């Protein structure tokens, strides 16, 4: 009986410390500065063919999906 109580306590303790570590990890990545409702800052960047592309090129014409990715040659 006592053993089972002890194991429950140990499990609970492990869970608490794991979730604290997880929360700390989440906090180390700050929220993006630009959020829903903000004006998207303009940029002028070179594409894979060497052409400059501006966000403002699409103003009034198209929606833009702006997909930031970590590294080329990786998934996602």
């Amino acid at each position: 009986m006592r053993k089972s109580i002890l194991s429950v306590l140990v499990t609970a303790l492990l869970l608490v410390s794991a979730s604290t570590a997880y929360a700390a990890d989440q906090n180390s990545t700050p929220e993006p500065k630009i959020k829903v409702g903000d004006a998207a800052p303009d940029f002028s960047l070179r594409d894979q063919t060497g052409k400059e592309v501006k966000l403002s090129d699409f103003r009034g014409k198209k929606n833009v999906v702006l997909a930031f990715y970590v590294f080329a040659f990786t998934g996602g």
Partner: protein
Amino acid sequence: MKAFQDQLKKLEGADTQVLGVSMDSPFANKAWAAQIGVTFPLLSDMGGDTSKEYGVYNSTYKAARRVTYLIDKEGKVVEMQKDRDAIDPSSVVTSCERRKMKS
């Protein structure tokens, strides 16, 4: 980015331009685009100015974080997805198609 390429017809049909952005060089992006068959622009934010301005720069990896924005025709952010959620474009596709129907 492959997932966005797969949905490109639908997105373009809903008046939407897809732009990928990373801190890779245009040369790396060119080779990668050819390898995975991406035809939309992959923009090179070397130095990370744009990533930092949007607040998606990850100082640990010295790279952009996986974040997807949907920006409307007026230049306003209408949707944002982070990390794992940002990989699947289906919710962005749905909102673009909905916006198209409304307009």
